[in-house]
């Protein structure tokens, strides 16, 4: 299978196999008008199988959520066809405007204009909580 190398953009690598579609949705990649490639079940020495997402556009993408969904994924920034930065997703302290609070008693359930913000409550258990009602973040 041939997927062209990208010139300027982001490659999200080492996504656990089967996780790419969820990331595609959470990162809002469906709304981009640039080429986006999803490679599923690519062979991986480290993981056995992995997913990869290639985004051929030099624009801001809210990658914070990546650490919440798949903290082992790696982010590769490509400029002029060259890898300029490689980093692990890691767990962000704060996730904004990506997840929605599912608690029907939360103020955000009746005021949709409020920014949806979750903060890291427990690094070990990777628990995020809504800043308003403290309900646990669900994907």
């Amino acid at each position, binding site marked *: 299978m041939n997927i062209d190398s990208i010139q300027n953009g982001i490659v999200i690598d080492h996504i656990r196999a089967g996780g790419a579609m969820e990331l595609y949705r959470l990162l809002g990649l469906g709304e981009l008008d640039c080429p986006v490639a999803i490679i599923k079940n690519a062979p991986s020495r480290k993981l056995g199988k992995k997913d990869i997402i290639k985004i051929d556009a030099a624009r801001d993408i809210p990658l914070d959520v990546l650490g919440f969904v798949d903290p082992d994924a790696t982010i590769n920034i490509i400029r002029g066809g060259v890898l300029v930065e490689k980093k692990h997703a890691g767990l962000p302290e704060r996730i904004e405007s990506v997840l929605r609070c599912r*608690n029907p*008693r*939360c*103020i*955000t*359930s*009746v*005021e949709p*204009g*409020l920014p949806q913000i979750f903060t890291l*409550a*427990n690094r070990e258990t990777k628990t995020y909580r*809504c*800043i*308003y*009602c*403290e*309900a*646990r973040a669900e994907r």
Partner: protein
Amino acid sequence: MKHLIDIRDLTQAEILELLDLADAIVADPAAYREVCRYKKLATLFFEPSTRTRLSFEAAMYELGGQVLGFSEAASSSAAKGESVADTIRVVSCYADIIAMRHPKEGAPLVGAMHAGVPIINAGDGGHNHPTQTLTDLMTIRREKGRLSDFTIGFCGDLKFGRTVHSLIAALSRCAGVRFVLVSPEELKLPSYIKKDILLEQGLPYEQTTDLHAVMPELDVLYMTRVQRERFFNEEDYLRLKDSYILTPEKLENAKAALSILHPLPRVNEIDAAIDDDPRACYFRQARNGKFVRMALILKLLELA
């Protein structure tokens, strides 16, 4: 700008300072009668709660201040679809301090993000009710003479009972407190509170459905009401509402120095026959609520 949204916003030293001030007001209320002259408290109650609202209003009047506000969402601009943020921005123009109750969790935090004056969370759904916690702490300290080294039993609705959650969080900072959690299976303390507070800090606790068996161990018994408004399902409410009713017989094996607290209002979970028992503290607790709210208003307005 300082607000009180969650009891955890306060350090232990700040809590003790508030309780000391509340005790000082109890000892000499006349000294505080004019301290809030020309100051206005807005009580914004998007959900009715006569008791808490009256307690705040009495507190402000006793400090010489004045009160404005509404007691239900229907008589506020929220009924016209105004956001919490806008309501608070507007009321900040008219009042020096705001006490706000809202049925949705986190609404007072939204208020605090947009307020030009201090916001006090007077209860947000099943989430937080920090002035009730201050009231509870003040009552325990006045009744026991200390805020450490006792066994406290929480009985009733420990799942939706926000007063329970906040008080457990506050007492987790006090030394030598042992927690006994008494509830039906369906209304057990949420596991995240158990994990994040009790287990995380290695605090001693016991979970049971049998109040009688643990009664002799208790120094403080915190009773709660099973609240109809916290259930989406009426059948569940009817099935669980009478789970624990405290009667004189159930107190037979209790300590003579037990202190029985209840955030009120009660429905039938404490038999009226117990009201005259010196161990019943809940009406003194309601009175303490006014004093601790006076102390809080003074601190947030930086008048004490």
